[in-house]
């Protein structure tokens, strides 16, 4: 039995061993409820405070700006719905390529009297500058644009977009779930430009599933999504998930270390992949824009993405045919649609997202397997026709 190769780091990542080690004592030995006032509880509280500091330092934020949630989806929901609840309904703008956990809550607000504008992107997956300007003229109250896209890896110039949003008085949020640990993310700098809230998640950076944070400028008023007890400065009630929060702290600390070295390794591996794929005649999405160094999104003409990833899985490679969360959905990617990619081609989309542990050798073997698989599929298609 051979171990499959994991090329789906944008879906989730393996827990780093050091993170596991930090978490383990908090299950059975140090198990207190952080709200309890006895020693068991106080130990848990101290651990949470320490983790909050680590997350804050890693992201360039102040510990009091960190609101722990159960995941990135909750962090995004908390900002979108929570900020909207404190405002009179008006215009809300989110990019058309946001993750569903931004788009769906935004759509919910329409029922509460909000107008929703989905910001168009250009063919390379970047927010369309001129359309953005015209939306700003309509005085939006809330704007959310992701720092890096989960499918294409395309990075938005969030600081510049936020600076312009601030001029018209809009509150600006960015979903940085995919960016942290892959590129430098500094909330202080983003905040100075005008970003007032940012979502980050643990399980995309070698931390555990079940914990994330909304980094929030304290001047922004939010209604909590979950009430009851007033945890997290009243913004998120519920007994704190101590072990996961501890893991998140350590994962954040590690994720921002050695980013330059990691970047050059990932870029070299991806360049080799792109070279091989181009030779096979693949279309590479978003390559003109600045991208996360680990993400590659491509399609081969006449090859169905679902079929291809299924065969690659059997051959020992875990890749994705779209965002993991909507993999059950046979619709072509909304991101590619927004970029103007023809549906036939979009249906062939496959995402490779590299990460820790991937090697140059794996890339070479993968290219051989891919070549082989594609030839097989093309032969089958030819027979069918």
């Amino acid at each position, binding site marked *: 039995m051979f171990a499959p190769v994991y090329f789906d780091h944008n879906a989730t990542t393996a827990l780093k061993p050091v993170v596991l080690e930090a978490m383990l004592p908090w299950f059975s030995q140090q198990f207190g409820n952080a709200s309890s006032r006895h020693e068991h509880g106080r130990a848990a509280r101290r651990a949470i405070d320490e983790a909050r500091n680590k997350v804050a330092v890693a992201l360039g934020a102040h510990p009091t700006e960190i609101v722990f949630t159960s995941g990135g989806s909750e962090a995004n929901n908390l900002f979108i719905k929570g900020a909207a609840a404190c405002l009179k309904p008006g215009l809300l703008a989110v990019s058309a390529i946001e993750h569903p956990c931004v788009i769906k809550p935004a759509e919910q607000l329409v029922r509460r009297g909000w107008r929703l504008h989905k910001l168009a992107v250009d063919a390379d997956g970047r927010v369309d500058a001129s359309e953005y300007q015209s939306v700003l003229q309509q005085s939006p109250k809330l704007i959310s644009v992701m720092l890096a896209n989960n499918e294409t890896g395309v990075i938005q110039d969030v600081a510049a977009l936020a600076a312009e949003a601030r001029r018209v008085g809009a509150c600006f949020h960015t979903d940085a779930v995919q960016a942290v640990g892959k590129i430098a993310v500094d909330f202080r700098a983003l905040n100075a430009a005008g970003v007032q809230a940012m979502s980050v998640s643990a399980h995309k950076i070698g931390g*555990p599933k079940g914990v994330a944070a909304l980094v929030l400028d304290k001047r922004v008023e939010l209604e909590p999504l979950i009430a009851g007890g007033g945890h997290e400065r009243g913004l998120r009630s519920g007994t704190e998930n101590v072990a996961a929060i501890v893991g998140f702290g350590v994962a954040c600390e590690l994720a921002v270390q050695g980013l330059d070295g990691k970047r050059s390794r990932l870029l070299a591996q991806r360049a080799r992949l792109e070279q091989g794929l181009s030779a096979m005649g693949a279309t590479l999405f978003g390559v003109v824009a600045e991208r996360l160094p680990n993400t590659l999104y491509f399609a081969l003409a006449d090859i169905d993405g679902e079929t291809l990833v299924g065969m690659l899985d059997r051959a020992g490679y*875990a890749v994705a045919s779209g965002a993991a969360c909507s993999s059950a959905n046979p619709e072509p990617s909304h991101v590619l649609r927004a970029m103007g990619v023809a549906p036939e081609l979009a249906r062939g989309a496959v995402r490779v997202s590299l990460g820790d542990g991937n090697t140059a050798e794996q890339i070479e073997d993968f290219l051989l397997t891919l070549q082989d698989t594609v030839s097989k599929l093309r032969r089958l298609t030819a027979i069918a026709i």
Partner: protein
Amino acid sequence: MLRLPIYLDYSATTPVDPRVAEKMIPYLVEKFGNPASRSHAFGWETEAAVEEAREEVAKLVHADPKEIVWTSGATESNNLALKGAANFYSGKGKHIITLKTEHKAVLDTCRELERQGFEVTYLDVLENGLLDLEVFKAALRSDTILVSVMFVNNEIGVIQPIAEIGEICREKGIIFHVDAAQATGKVEIDLGALKVDLMSFSAHKTYGPKGIGALYIRRKPRVRLEAQMHGGGHERGFRSGTLATHQIVGMGEAFRLAREEMAVENKRIGALRDRLLKGLSDIDQVFINGDMTHRVPHNLNISFAYIEGESMLMAIKDLAVSSGSACTSASLEPSYVLRALGREDELAHSSIRFTLGRFNTEEEIDYAIKLLHKKIGSLRELSPLWEMVQDGVDLSTVQWAAH
């Protein structure tokens, strides 16, 4: 060897049972796939584990696995149940009934619903903490859409008449939600028989991990909810967000152990609780809070008259206990649950909640009894009120001078 402090606060949270932790760890390490990843084996493997755990949770409460939706904990479950049902059925009416002794997760959510235009009746309970069914029936209105009553109270451990309330609600077509965070593993829960529409569960009160809970949503007759967290459409659209596999696996295993062991375990813990009660019963002026019959076996809530609760907690540092629920223990307010039982502030202030659990021993209980005897004696010696009572002064007749 006795390890101090002795943990007697199992209603605040429980340790993860080592058997549960063992089951969780592979899902933290090698089995790390995203259960929503449909394109490779890493995802299928964790998806299968999630479904297996869902079956275990369903089995403990005699539900169908399809009726179980994962959440981040009972607080979220309560929020989802109450806001989700209130919003969905708001066309039928705007009236909600709950109890004054509910957990903050229910009370705070109800307050929020009031701000949204719902009308909430907060019912009083009897002196023993139980709901009077006649009072409940009298509170029902033609526009009542939702009732929320906790199964087991977190502070005094009393078990509410869920079956009877369920009958009344079903007959009138009112959605009935039950917060069962404190009930799993302690009382039998049969959702095949109980006419409950929505039920909240937590893992970390039943030897599972923190950060995971579930909401039971009845399919027959079908109950509908408005989702509170939107996104990728996980959990059949009821609750979006990547599933925390290791936590889910932990909850499944914790609930499986509860199902297999609760009968024996509750007897053992009940005996320890009775030993504690017996050991304290020769102390003067001790009052038990809450009904002793309709009560989970692991809870003892006692007021020690003429002792100030804070100094008591300081004096018995070797015992990890609480003076209210963990969630409100940061405030110095006397417990709102005890006040709802009609306890005066002084007695509410001097109350201690002992909640026993899986890892307590007789030796620990005996240590606690001895310590309490000693400390209560010395604290009362310092109390001028206690001195007056000993001198035969009836404190209720004393005219206190204001300074």
